[in-house]
């Protein structure tokens, strides 16, 4: 029997990894100025306590409730309109970006040709660009461009979510069984027809499910974008926070939770029904 040494082969890599992690952690701590202790410092606790004490009772006078109601509706409308516009852009781009419609792929069992890759790459790049810039940055830009209010929010959601939807749609098209569409294309049908008869039936459930899920995210995003002036519930929360009107903030946070819950329920219902 060979005399093997008692050293653990995983020792060196683990040690190196630990050293690397520490080497990265130290400047990270410096840069982020991390100090959880501030939350526990006496005067800060005082401030947080004062702020949260103002939450009770939540504001509930009639005029404010009316404002709350319109703000919530506005948020819902922003999310829905934004998604509708996003779909308008996402559907054609996803068709362009997906290898599922490649004629070459139909005859070479799934591998697209060089030309089609040349066309698809920039479209994919565009989609990645659209979804990588955070939607709130878009919102900020649009607020500067078209002024305060829900329009900026709608446009921001339209742009970011078209990127997200487009990319995921393209992936869904490629993930379902390609053979029906290939067979149709080889039989001479046009690309769109092959798509409609071959890919769409198997993909529609997942498409609908993802779209509804994204709508739910859009509702939450609309609130967050309101913070930079894109209207709806978020803008009102921002205003009330600046005025330290704790009661109003509390009611609006409650309205936000209610909205999120409603969106969640609606989303589950729709997914169950349509998918």
């Amino acid at each position, binding site marked *: 029997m060979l005399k093997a040494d008692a050293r653990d082969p995983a020792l060196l890599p683990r040690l190196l990894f630990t050293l690397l992690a520490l080497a990265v952690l130290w400047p*990270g701590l410096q840069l982020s100025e991390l100090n959880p202790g501030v939350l526990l410092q006496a005067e800060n606790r005082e401030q947080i306590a004062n702020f949260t004490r103002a939450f009770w009772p939540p504001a509930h006078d009639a005029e404010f409730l009316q404002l709350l109601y319109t703000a919530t509706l506005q948020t819902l409308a922003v999310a829905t309109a934004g998604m*509708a516009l996003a779909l308008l852009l996402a559907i054609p781009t996803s068709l362009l970006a997906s290898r599922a419609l490649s004629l070459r792929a139909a005859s070479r069992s799934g591998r697209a040709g060089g030309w089609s890759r040349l066309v698809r790459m920039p479209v994919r790049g565009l989609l990645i660009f659209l979804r990588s810039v955070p939607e709130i940055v878009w919102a900020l830009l649009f607020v500067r*461009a078209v002024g305060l209010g829900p329009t900026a929010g709608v446009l921001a959601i339209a742009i970011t979510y078209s990127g997200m939807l487009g990319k995921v749609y393209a992936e869904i098209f490629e993930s379902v069984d390609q053979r029906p569409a290939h067979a149709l294309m080889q039989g001479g049908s046009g690309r769109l027809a092959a798509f409609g008869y071959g890919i769409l039936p198997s993909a529609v459930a997942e498409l609908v499910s993802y779209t509804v899920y994204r709508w739910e995210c859009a509702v939450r995003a609309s609130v967050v974008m309101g913070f930079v002036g894109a209207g709806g519930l978020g803008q009102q929360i921002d205003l009330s926070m600046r005025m330290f009107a704790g009661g109003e903030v509390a009611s609006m946070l409650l309205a936000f939770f209610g909205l999120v819950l409603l969106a969640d329920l609606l989303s589950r219902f729709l997914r169950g029904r349509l998918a």
Partner: protein
Amino acid sequence: MNRLVNLLVISAIVAAVVASFGYLQLDLHALVGDGGLGQMGEYAGRFLHPDLSTEHLRAVGHGALETLAMSGLGTLLAMVLGMLLALPAAGRFGWPLQSVARLLLNALRAIPELVWAALTVLAAGLGPNAGTLALALHTAGVLGRLFAEALENAPVEPAAAIRLQGGGQVAAFCFGTLPNLWPQLLAYSLYRWENNIRMASVLGFVGAGGLGQMLYTTLSLFQEAQASTVIMAMLVLVLLVDAFSDVLRQRYVRA
């Protein structure tokens, strides 16, 4: 009957979309017609000449590192806090603690990061510390809930076997449950990190430091050239983190 209900649902959705546009009185025509498109085009054009001077690049680089540190440490802190809360939330310490832990986790994740950031800026002052804490608190809620679900679904035999040979609770957990759970936990955490790098840029809007704060100031001062550099840096950061997290996933989260 089913088809009828489906048809009703679809028409309701279409009606909702139309109503949304009507409610917002979004006059898209006014937006793009009357030179509105030209206005937006001109505004967009101001971004096409980014400021690439060394001084500004250094500032942007520092901001980018700050944002990276915020997101990374925030996620790391959230992993620890989330794990600590997930243990009681999965029922390891009895029923009353489970309810309390679940309530806490739900509260942490229901409040969006931006609201947390407003609170932490209030408590901890402006700067990246507030941003890191805000990310950590919100993500702890999200990860804690995911960890608790993973814990509940993990097989109990390995840990029970260690208990049966006299091992302590901690040892049983670390040798028995954790090795099975670890890939899943890492996958969730990496996914949240990808999300947090986007949020970290944004938290700067409420004063929490990093690239977000730079963007806010440059846009408010109408310095579009500088703002454009910041946006490019944000893009690069997001793409880098996505790629790195993909590499980590391939390496450590094999099914």
